[in-house]
Each structure stands twice: as structure tokens, then as C-alpha cells.
């Protein structure tokens, strides 16, 4: 059913394929145009077509999705875009007063109007009214003015976006949309202007029939438990991002991006206070957040406790919430989420049922009737706490009658509001033991919890001895006045120690802290229980009124807060401890001094490191002080410019302004038509200073060199072929002899040419049956051997004349088949004029059996061999084609072959002729000609690799669908590898040759340019150091230019975190862009090398990251996500934008380097 629908859609597609692509924006423009009647008549026809085309595209996309996934989720963005397209179609030509004198012409109004006559429409109207979404969206839009928080605006806007096409969406899901549209079309004259799409006699029905497909689909609301984990495809991520970011950021795009690129020293040195309020992710934040509280692939839930009270703000009641500990990569994260966010607003705002839906799913605010809830939820988001335990130094525990309190003090002294666990029953201990185990590999609690045989973990006991025995110390037993239960009540301070911190911590500070703890018996430091309890119900201590929140709000003062609160409490509560108070104040001052000093020190260190990075790593990346004036940025190197700057000056023997040429290419690229002329200069084949004669000389020597190498490797190739034949042929012979009648094996008759031809055609046919699939290209020639044997053995019974085939002749057959399959061999028949000369010298003596056909072709070839000439090649081709056609006529007149296959078959046939000649010497002894065995072995393995990769190189690109061009590619590749046999062929090299060959369409110069290109790129290939350098540079660059993204990548990845750049650097971005863009990228890299930076690729890579940085951050992509994202985005990037950003980044780095 669904596939049938898709077929319909595809049919329609083919009808309309001639129309131009237009995007959503254009549709919006068109919609705008629709309201502007005076301009309408000019474009109406075009508009109709565009509208329909757009709709068709959306429908097609949805049907494809449906086929793939069986059902479509209701929240899939495809639905929204389809609805948009339908809406645009329906709005086209809608009469202004169609739906009533005072009503505005919306499609919803139209729907309400027709609801009286159309039952489907009535249903939809009813459903929509029930949802009451319109009132909501209106309310929402009215309150957006009052909401300042961007987050909030974004969410409301999203809701508005969602509800905009609500009726269309509802109708689609009710599967009645096409009926409604049908009804509208039937009654079009009533509501629409005559030029409207809907009123059109042809396009109207097409419109409604297009919708029939989507209306037959299954839509599902169901979410599997794992729904959120299934990753959306990259395209969807980008689209989502665009949908919700364009509205809010388009106006201030540049200012938004700018500050983020500044170096962010502050964040480096201290960031704990910033972390208390997380900025929630943009894409469906609430859901993601709640989701993140669960155990998931990235983090492990190690502790969870509900109804933990926190007083978020002074003067507010403590809120209950969910306290949880999560173990991510190496960090322990503490989260506290107000219950309101966890379960809706049931406890506070009374709007119990609807609220919950909002909090879980803010996108769907339409369902709620209380707009106030939206406001509230944002407040709660602010209350949510997110702490990385690595930033926490002290953990104060207070055990009260009314429950336990935990106060966390961050490294920078910020004290977080106390978590109050009201419930009895050892929760505090449980929390601590979980925390301890969570910290365990890298950190610990100091003092550690004790372990007792029967009870498991218990609080350290030392303080009790301390209380009893060490009364003279500063801590007195009276500190816990209300200790009813000896065991349970007590206050503790734990220090969180990270092992790697030991190296960093200022030794003095460390000393101090140990001395302090030694003062309290190297163990827990008991405090008065009143110390930091914000809700001082029973203690009566006035000092404890200090609200924790005030400390959070003024981080600058809080440095000493944790300690000062201790001291002040002690002052007030225990006069009798004046001595101890004095010492503790003194030590506190010490601490403060130490902390201030150490912070200043670390700040300075960080700054120095930053400078060092800039100086040592980055300074070399750009050429200093070569700011390019941005004045003429847009001027590309056009034909005129090239003529003026180069050709004219050269003819007048004037010096050439290389820099200006480079500059133009750097900014605007090079006109496609002159690439062939310019690139040899860019890629260093010619120096700019050279005269025409010098260039001819260069060409001549290069060509000679190329020819020489080609002769060599072709000789080697022949030997390789022979050896392979030997190897597999012998095996084949043995197998055949065993399958055939044993009597026959001894007979060695003359090979009957007719018989062979017969067999051959048979094989060709067999080939032709699978030659248009992928695998034939990947077959290496030996792979064909066995089946042929089977074939011949099978044939032996029905075809009597096949019986006398001996091992020898059968072998020949198999060898011929090899060549049919092998795409390697055909090439040298056609192209290898010079090589063949050489080859034939060796081989002619061995040729003793040749069919007439072979003779002919051979003669042709010999004639042609003298010159490398395209024409000759064609001649051979033509000749072969004739033969080919003839043969096909004989063998299989009915075989329907596509034209592209004919090309292939040409090669096959010629090859066969050739192989016929060669095959006869297949059993001569192994020899390596003038090469060593090692060389041949090495080349042999490389040759097979090359053949595999050439065959699948860019076969979807039109240039390489021509077999001749693939042959050229192979020749270049073989020549290079032959010349650099120690490097050998490495996958990816083909990709690098391919664009060059497309530009030059000529072997010699492509080869030369490729050699120059490889000089730069070879270190990037495996076992070279180039890639590691690139990664290291990327790391430093990103650190300086976008520290936020750097931190993110660093946090979520391991040491391989720049791995997603691997292919970029290896292939100079060849796989990331479409062909036209590759040319631009490559010429810009080449010109940038002379102008601004030797390693411009780094800046392109950085710019790629920057273009998607928000997506990466918003979706919190980790290492694997980023790899997948960029792999999927390959060939979809906006090259212009990326190159522009890359140039900006160069400028920016130049400024950073110069500034200091």
C-alpha cells in the first residue's frame, strides 16, 4: 500500500522535476506575495508551480520516512513542514472576505466556514476547539512581551510555531485532510480568486491527490522507552536548530557569535559559581533534563532521594525536590530538581493535571490552559541545582532532630544552599557512602567513612573520643547540646580530596588543612549544630540567620563565608572558648590569605599558559602581520582579471603580481573556466616567474618522466598479471582436471578458436547479466576462476564439443574471464600505447595462436601505439565497438544493454582480444623481468588495492562514469605508486587525484600536480606524524578561539576527541564538499599557503566546527555523536559560509597573536 503511494508520488515528481528548487523561505516570500494583489498576476503561474513543488517535496520526504520507519511519530518535524506547505497552498488566492466580512482570511477561519457542509471539517474543528489551543497561543503571544528570559520566549515561540498549523496537523492525523482539501477544491470558486492554486482545474486535484498518501499513513504518539535515545539524523538536528534559532538569533547573529569566540580566561580559572545555574539546552530542555536524571548511557545514577528540601531564595519556603548523584565519565554530578519540574505543579499551583504535561514537554504548551504555569516553570528552572563535585571542597553535615542537612562549599568558597533531608533513617549516611564510592577512583572523602562489620558504613567515630578526651582543644562537647541520640546526632565536615589535586594544591595550603584537621584529631571536625541551618527553628542562635542564598548571590563575599559562619557562631555561642576562637580566627585569616594568593597565582598561571599556547603553538600557524585588506574581498579571479593580471603582463614581459592573484583566489576563488590554466601555478607545477618556453620545458620533462615511469610499471603489471595467472591458473587447472573426465586430461589438443569464441560469448553474456551491479567492479580477476570451472564442468554433459577441453584450454577460458571481470587490464589495452610497444616485444614471440579478430585488433593497436593521442584511442574504441556489436548480435541479440554498459563492454572485448594473445604463454616459468621479486610483490599488492579503489572512486560523479576517465585515474595512481613504492598506495589517494583530473582532464599535468599535493599531504597518512600535529594544533586553536566548545569536546571525549577531523585533513576536505566546492576549497588552501597560513586547513576545520558549534553544544553531542553528525553532513555544508568563517578566523588569530 505504502509503496504504491510512493510510486504515485514519484510519478508526480517526474512530472514536475523541471522546476527549480525553492526552500521554505521562498514559500514564505510567496505567501507574502499572495497578500499583495497588484503583483500577483505577474507571478501567479510560477507561484502555483512552486507551491505545488514544495508540497510534493514534503510529501515525498514523509513517504520515504514512512517506508523506512513503518510509522511516523507525531512530533516528527516532517509533519510540521508538510503542514506549512499545505497551509501555503491553501492560502494562495484565498479571497479576502471569503469567510465573512470581519474575519481575517486564515485557513482556520476557512475551515470553520466549511465545517457546516463538510463533516470531516466539522470533526477537525471540534478537536481543535477541544484542545483550546488558539486561545492559548494568543495568550502566549501576549505574555511574551513581559517575559524577559530568552529561554522563555523561545519556548513560547515554539508553542506558537507548533499550534500554527494545528488544524492541518489534526486533520492529517485524523486522516481526513485530503477530504477537506477535496471539498475546498470542489467549492473553490466560493472562497478563492480564480488564479488560486486550489481553483486551478489541473493543479487543484493534484494538490488533493498528493495529500492522499500522507493521510493513509500511521502516525504514532507512542514512545518506546528508548525513544529519546534514538539519535535523530544530522539533517534533522540541523533543521531543528534552524527552526528555533533563526527567530531568536537571526537579528543578532553576529554579536551572538562574536563574544563566544573571545578567549575566555575567566571560565578557565574558576567556574564553579557559574555552574550552579545551568543554562538549559535549547532543544526541548525540560524533557532532556528530566531524562538526564535517569540512568542512561552517558551517566550512571548512583544516588537518588526525593523530597529533599532546599530554600532557593531568601524569604521563600523551602522547596522539596529530587536530589541525585550521577557518575559521568570521571565526574560526580549532584543535581537537585524541584518537584515541580519532576511531576508538574501539583504541589504548588494546583493546576495538577495539565501542568504536568507542560513540564515534561514544554513544546506542547497548547494543551495547557494556564499560561501562568509557563512562567512558573522558568523560575523552577532557575532553582534547579547542578553541581560538579570536583568543584566542591567541603561538605558539612548537620544532623538535627528535624532531619539532616548537607551544605556544600565550593572551591572558590561559594556555599550552596543546604539540602535538608527531613526523613529519618540514615539517608545522610547513604548519601555519603554513595558519594564516597562515586568519588572513589579519583577522589575520596577525608576523613573516610568507617566500615563496621554488621552495620556497613558508619560515620567516623574519632570525634567522639575527641569530644570526651580533648576538651582542652578548641572544640568542646557542648557543641552538640541537643544530643539525645548519641549515635545519630552530630555534625561533620568532610573534605573532598581529589588525587590529582595533590600535585596542584599549594603545599602550604595543604599543610594548613592537615594541621587544621590534626587539630581536630585528623578526623571529622565537629561543629555546633546551629551553624548553618537556615531555618533555625530550635537553636535560637541569631547568627545562623545568615541565609545561604545570599552567599550564592554575592560570590565575591562568600570566599570566607563557610569559615566565617563557623567562627561567628562560635563567637556567639561559646564565650568560654575564647582562646580557641582566637586561634580559629587566625587560621581563618590564614586560609583566606592563602586562598586569595593561590587564586591569583592560578589565574596568573592560566594566563601564562594561554600566552604560551599562543606563542609556541599558534604563532607558527599564521604568517604574522599580513592582514589583508578586506576592501575587495568579493573580487574573484575572473577571466578578465586573469587576462589582465597574468596573460597581458606576461606577453609584455612585465613582472607578475603573484600576491594579487593569490589574494583574489583566496577571497573569491577562481572562475571555473580558467582553473585549467591557473591551477598548475597554484599547485606549483609552474612557477609564476617562468616564461612560456620554460613552461614548455617543464611540461616536456614531466611528460618524459611520466612516460618512462608508465613504461616501467606497465612492464611490472604484465609480470604481476602473469604471476597471478600462474598462481590461480595452476590451481584452476588442477581443479578442472579433477572435475573432468580423467581420460581427457591427458590429451592436449590444439585450441579450437571457435570453441573459445563460443565459450567467450557465453561468458560475456553471463557477465552482462550482472555487470550493472556494484560487485563486478570490486572483483579482482582471480575471483572469477572457480565458477567458470563449474560452468565448464556443468556444460560438459549437454555440450559434447566442450568435452575435449583440457586443463590447458579450460585454463585459457578462465583466464579470459578474468579479464572480463578485471577492470584493471582493459585499460592498458586502450591507453598504453607506449607501454604496449614494450610489452609486445616481450610477448610477441609467445603468441602463436591468434584468431582473426585478434590479429586485426592487434594490428590496429600496433599502428596506434606510436603516439599518445586521443583520436587513436577513439579509433580503437570504435573498432572495438564494431566487433563488440557484431559479437553481441551473434550471441545474444535479445540482450538489452544500456549505453553505459556498452562502454564497459567495449573495454571488455578489446581486453579479450588482448588476453587471447597473452593467455597462451600463461604457463611459462615464473620470471620477474628486470625487476626484483620484492618490487613485483610490492607492486602487485598495491595494484590490487588501486584497482579496488579506482573502481569505486566517485562513480556517482558524471566525469567518472566515463570509463576512460577512470583509466586515466588508474594510470596516474599507478605511476605515482610505482615512483613511490616505499609509500605505496594508501586508501584516500584516489580521492585526491580525482578532483585534479577533473580540472585538467589530462594525465601528465594531473600527475605532476598530484605529486606536489602529496608532498604536503603524505605526512597525514598513517604512520606519518602529520595527523597528530593537526590534532594538536586544533586543540590549541580551539582552546584559544572557542574555549566553550573546547571544554565541551574535552569533557565528552577521550584522547581521540578530534578524530572527527581525520578525514578532513587526510583528504583536504575532499569528501566533505560537493565537487564544485572542492575546487574552491582546494584553490583557497593553495593560495592561503602563500598569503596567510601554511595550514589553512586548520582554519577550515575550525570553521566547520564553529558553524555547528551551537548544535553540538545544544545537543550535548559527545565524541561519537560528533563523528556521526559530520559523517552525515558530508557534502551538505555551505562551503561559502565555511570558507568565509575560516578567513575570519585567520584574521582573528592574527589579531590575538599581535595583541599580546
Amino acid at each position: 500500500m505504502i509503496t504504491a503511494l510512493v510510486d504515485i508520488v514519484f510519478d508526480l515528481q517526474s512530472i514536475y522535476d523541471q522546476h527549480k528548487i525553492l526552500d521554505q523561505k521562498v514559500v514564505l516570500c510567496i505567501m507574502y506575495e499572495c497578500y499583495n494583489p497588484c503583483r500577483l498576476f505577474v507571478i501567479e503561474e510560477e507561484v502555483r508551480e512552486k507551491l505545488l513543488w514544495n508540497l510534493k517535496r514534503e510529501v515525498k520526504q514523509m513517504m520515504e520516512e514512512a517506508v523506512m520507519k513503518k510509522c511516523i511519530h507525531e512530533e516528527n518535524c516532517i509533519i510540521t513542514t508538510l503542514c506549512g506547505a499545505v497551509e501555503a497552498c491553501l492560502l494562495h488566492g484565498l479571497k479576502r472576505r471569503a469567510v465573512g466580512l470581519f474575519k481575517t482570511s486564515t485557513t482556520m477561519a476557512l475551515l470553520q466556514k466549511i465545517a457546516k457542509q463538510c463533516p470531516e471539517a466539522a470533526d477537525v474543528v471540534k478537536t481543535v476547539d477541544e484542545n483550546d489551543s488558539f486561545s492559548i497561543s494568543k495568550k502566549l503571544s501576549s505574555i511574551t512581551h513581559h517575559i524577559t528570559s530568552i529561554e522563555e520566549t523561545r519556548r513560547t515561540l515554539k508553542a506558537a510555531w507548533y499550534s500554527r498549523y494545528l488544524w492541518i496537523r489534526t486533520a492529517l492525523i485524523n486522516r481526513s485532510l485530503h477530504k477537506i482539501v477535496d471539498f475546498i477544491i470542489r467549492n473553490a470558486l466560493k472562497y478563492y480568486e480564480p488564479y488560486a492554486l486550489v481553483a486551478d482545474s489541473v493543479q487543484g486535484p493534484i494538490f488533493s491527490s498528493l495529500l492522499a498518501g500522507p493521510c493513509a499513513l500511521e502516525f504514532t504518539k507512542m514512545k518506546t522507552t528508548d525513544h529519546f535515545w534514538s539519535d535523530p539524523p544530522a539533517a534533522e538536528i540541523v533543521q531543528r536548530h534552524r527552526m528555533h534559532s533563526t527567530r531568536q538569533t537571526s537579528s543578532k547573529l553576529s554579536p551572538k557569535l562574536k563574544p563566544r569566540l573571545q578567549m575566555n580566561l575567566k571560565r578557565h580559572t574558576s567556574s564553579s559559581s557559574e555552574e550552579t545555574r545551568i543554562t538549559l539546552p535549547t532543544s526541548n530542555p525540560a524533557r532532556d533534563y528530566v531524562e538526564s536524571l535517569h540512568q542512561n548511557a552517558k551517566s550512571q545514577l548512583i544516588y537518588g532521594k526525593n523530597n529533599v528540601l532546599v530554600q532557593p531564595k531568601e524569604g521563600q519556603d523551602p522547596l522539596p525536590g529530587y536530589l541525585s548523584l550521577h557518575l559521568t565519565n570521571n565526574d560526580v554530578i549532584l543535581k537537585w530538581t524541584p518537584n515541580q519540574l519532576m511531576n508538574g505543579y501539583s504541589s504548588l499551583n494546583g493546576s495538577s493535571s495539565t501542568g504536568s504535561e507542560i513540564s515534561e514537554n514544554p513544546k506542547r504548551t497548547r494543551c495547557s490552559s494556564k499560561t501562568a504555569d509557563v512562567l512558573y516553570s522558568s523560575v523552577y528552572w532557575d532553582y534547579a541545582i547542578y553541581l560538579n563535585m570536583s568543584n566542591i571542597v567541603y561538605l558539612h553535615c548537620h544532623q538535627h532532630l528535624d532531619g539532616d542537612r548537607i551544605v556544600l562549599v565550593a572551591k572558590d568558597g561559594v556555599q550552596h544552599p543546604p539540602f535538608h533531608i527531613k526523613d529519618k533513617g540514615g539517608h545522610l549516611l547513604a548519601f555519603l557512602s554513595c558519594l564516597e564510592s562515586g568519588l572513589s577512583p579519583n577522589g575520596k572523602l577525608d576523613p573516610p567513612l568507617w566500615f563496621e562489620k554488621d552495620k556497613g558504613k558508619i560515620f567516623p567515630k574519632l570525634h567522639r573520643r575527641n569530644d570526651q578526651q580533648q576538651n582542652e582543644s578548641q572544640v568542646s562537647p557542648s557543641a552538640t547540646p541537643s544530643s539525645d541520640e548519641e549515635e545519630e546526632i552530630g555534625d561533620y565536615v568532610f573534605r573532598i580530596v581529589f588525587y590529582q589535586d595533590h600535585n596542584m594544591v599549594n603545599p602550604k595550603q595543604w599543610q594548613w588543612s592537615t594541621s587544621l584537621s590534626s587539630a581536630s584529631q585528623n578526623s571529622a571536625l565537629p561543629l555546633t549544630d546551629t551553624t548553618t541551618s537556615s531555618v533555625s527553628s530550635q537553636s535560637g542562635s541569631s547568627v545562623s540567620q545568615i541565609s545561604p542564598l545570599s552567599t550564592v548571590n554575592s560570590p565575591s563575599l562568600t570566599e570566607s563565608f563557610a569559615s566565617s559562619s563557623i567562627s561567628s557562631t562560635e563567637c556567639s555561642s561559646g564565650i568560654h572558648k575564647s582562646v580557641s576562637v582566637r586561634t580559629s580566627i587566625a587560621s581563618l585569616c590564614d586560609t583566606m590569605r592563602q586562598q586569595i594568593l593561590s587564586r591569583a597565582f592560578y589565574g596568573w598561571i592560566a594566563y601564562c599558559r594561554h600566552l604560551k599556547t599562543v606563542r609556541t603553538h599558534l604563532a607558527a600557524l599564521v604568517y604574522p602581520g599580513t592582514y589583508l585588506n578586506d576592501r575587495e574581498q568579493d573580487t574573484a579571479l575572473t577571466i578578465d582579471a586573469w587576462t589582465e593580471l597574468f596573460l597581458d603582463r606576461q606577453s609584455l614581459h612585465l613582472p607578475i603580481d603573484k600576491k594579487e592573484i593569490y589574494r583574489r583566489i583566496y577571497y573569491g576563488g577562481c572562475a571555473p573556466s580558467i582553473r585549467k590554466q591557473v591551477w598548475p601555478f597554484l599547485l606549483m607545477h609552474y612557477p609564476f616567474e617562468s616564461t612560456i618556453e620554460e613552461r614548455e620545458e617543464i611540461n616536456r620533462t614531466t611528460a618524459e618522466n611520466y612516460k618512462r615511469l608508465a613504461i616501467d610499471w606497465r612492464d611490472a603489471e604484465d609480470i604481476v598479471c602473469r604471476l597471478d595467472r600462474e598462481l590461480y591458473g595452476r590451481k584452476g587447472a588442477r581443479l578442472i582436471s579433477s572435475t573432468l573426465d580423467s581420460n581427457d586430461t591427458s590429451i592436449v589438443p590444439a585450441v579450437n578458436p571457435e570453441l573459445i569464441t563460443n565459450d567467450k560469448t557465453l561468458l560475456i553474456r553471463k557477465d552482462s547479466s550482472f555487470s550493472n551491479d556494484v560487485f563486478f567492479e570490486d572483483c579482482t580477476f582471480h575471483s572469477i576462476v572457480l565458477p567458470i570451472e563449474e560452468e565448464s564442468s556443468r556444460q560438459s554433459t549437454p555440450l559434447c564439443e566442450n568435452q575435449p577441453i583440457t586443463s590447458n584450454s579450460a585454463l585459457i577460458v578462465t583466464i579470459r574471464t578474468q579479464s572480463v571481470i578485471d577492470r584493471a587490464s582493459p585499460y592498458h589495452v586502450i591507453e598504453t600505447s607506449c607501454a604496449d610497444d614494450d610489452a609486445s616485444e616481450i610477448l610477441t614471440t609467445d603468441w602463436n595462436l591468434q584468431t582473426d579478430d585478434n590479429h586485426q585488433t592487434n594490428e590496429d593497436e600496433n599502428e596506434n601505439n606510436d603516439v599518445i593521442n586521443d583520436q587513436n584511442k577513439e579509433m580503437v574504441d570504435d573498432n572495438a565497438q564494431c566487433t563488440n556489436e557484431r559479437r553481441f548480435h551473434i550471441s545474444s541479440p535479445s540482450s538489452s544493454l544500456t549505453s553505459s554498459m556498452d562502454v564497459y563492454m567495449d573495454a571488455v572485448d578489446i581486453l579479450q582480444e588482448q588476453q587471447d594473445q597473452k593467455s597462451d604463454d600463461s604457463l611459462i616459468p615464473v620470471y620477474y623481468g628486470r625487476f626484483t621479486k620484492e618490487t613485483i610483490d610490492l607492486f602487485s599488492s598495491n595494484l590490487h588495492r588501486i584497482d579496488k579503489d579506482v573502481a569505486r572512486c566517485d562513480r556517482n560523479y558524471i566525469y567518472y562514469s566515463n570509463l576512460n576517465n577512470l583509466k586515466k585515474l588508474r594510470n596516474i595512481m599507478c605511476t605515482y605508486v610505482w615512483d613511490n613504492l616505499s609509500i605505496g598506495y594508501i586508501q584516500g589517494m584516489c580521492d585526491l587525484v580525482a578532483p585534479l583530473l577533473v580540472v585538467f582532464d589530462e594525465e601528465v599535468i594531473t600527475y605532476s600536480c598530484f605529486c606536489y599535493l602529496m608532498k604536503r599531504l603524505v605526512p597525514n597518512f598513517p604512520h606519518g606524524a602529520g595527523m597528530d600535529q593537526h590534532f594538536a594544533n586544533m586543540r590549541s586553536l580551539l582552546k584559544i578561539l572557542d574555549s566553550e566548545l573546547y571544554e565541551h569536546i574535552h569533557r565528552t571525549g577521550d584522547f581521540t576527541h578530534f578524530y572527527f577531523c581525520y578525514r578532513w585533513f587526510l583528504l583536504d576536505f575532499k569528501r566533505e564538499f560537493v565537487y564544485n566546492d572542492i575546487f574552491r576549497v582546494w584553490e583557497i588552501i593553495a593560495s592561503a599557503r602563500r598569503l596567510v597560513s601554511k595550514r589553512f586547513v586548520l582554519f577550515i576545520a575550525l570553521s566547520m566546527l564553529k558553524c555547528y558549534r551551537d548544535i553540538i553544544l545544544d545537543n550535548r553531542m559527545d565524541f561519537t555523536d560528533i563523528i556521526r553528525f559530520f559523517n552525515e553532513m558530508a557534502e551538505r555544508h555551505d562551503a561559502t559560509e565555511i570558507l568565509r568563517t575560516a578567513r575570519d578566523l585567520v584574521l582573528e588569530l592574527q589579531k590575538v597573536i599581535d595583541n599580546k
Partner: protein
Amino acid sequence: MSSRKKVLLKVIILGDSGVGKTSLMNQFVNRKFTNQYKATIGADFLTKEVQIDDRLVTMQIWDTAGQERFQSLGVAFYRGADCCVLVYDVTVANSFKALESWRDEFLIQAGPRDPENFPFVVIGNKIDLENRLVQMRKAQNWCTDKNNIPYYETSAKEGVNVEKAFETVARNALAREKEIDTPDFPMPIRIPTEDKPKDSSGCPC
């Protein structure tokens, strides 16, 4: 907050270049086959959710470059693998011979716990081609020798057996995960153990 642990299975596909690793992955995940694949550079992966008995698992299938030279690069991706798929081309004898070294190399580089029992699956691909060179019995024997590795013959082009092979991949990876994880799964959660009987009464969850 009882959420069943999400199961993510990391699967690595290895084998000589051109044996059809990318095709297999795409056939399994997208049920598509095109003849437009290029040689894989670097690494790519696709994810697919499959249901194994009553469990939904997400398979993260990593496709790697086939040239041995890139193997040093693959190391970064091998780590943490739950299963390894070794692919050869039934029409290329050498690709079968290479299985041994792919397997050994993987075990060295990935360093899995209990390498003897690490789940491998061997796939002989391209059985749609007629010029088969490696006989099924030979491959089967090899697999039996190597601690009974499951063996499948597939055609990524025609989608023959691909689903089945990957189901085995998921099943074996899952079985191993259960085996290994059961002992240390409760380790991180130390709260509700026997020493805290009060918890059950005190917690109003």
C-alpha cells in the same frame, strides 16, 4: 527512578577493503543497497535499535577502513566493543585468509576482558556472485576452530541473511554483557544493601 539500564552494544566490523563492510552495515540499518559506496576513510558508525527477546537494544555499528595501514587508527574505536564482526568476500580467497590476522589484531588492540570468549561473528559476503572461491565448509571449519564463532553467508546487495547475522551479533554481545555485568552491576549502588534495613521503612519513595 527505576529506569532499566539502557543497553548500547558497540559492534565493530572488520575485514579487508572491498569485502562489503559498508554495504552490510547500510543494508542492516537502512535496508538499502547502492553501488555508490566509496572506500571508507576514517570511521563511521550507524545505530539501529533492535529487539532481542523482550529487550530493546541499540546497536552502534562501527564501519572501519579496510586497508591494514589504517588499523592503527581503528584502535581508538575498538575499545569498549561488545562484539566484532569479521567480514570476508567469498569470491576473494585472500580476504578469507586475512580473517585470522584481523581477529588477532582486534584482540590485541581492543584488549577485551576474557578474550577467549569474546563474541565474534564471521560473515562471508557477496554470495550473490557466481564466482565463489572460498567454500563454505572451509570457512565453517575455521570458525569451529576458533571457539565456535557463528558463521553466516550473506549478500549485502540482496539483503540475504544480513538481518539474521546481526541478530546473532546482538544476541551474543548481549549475552556477554549479562555475563560480565551481573557481578559488578550492583557495585556502584551501595545504598540499599543489607546494612541499611531502615531504608525501606524510612524512605517514602
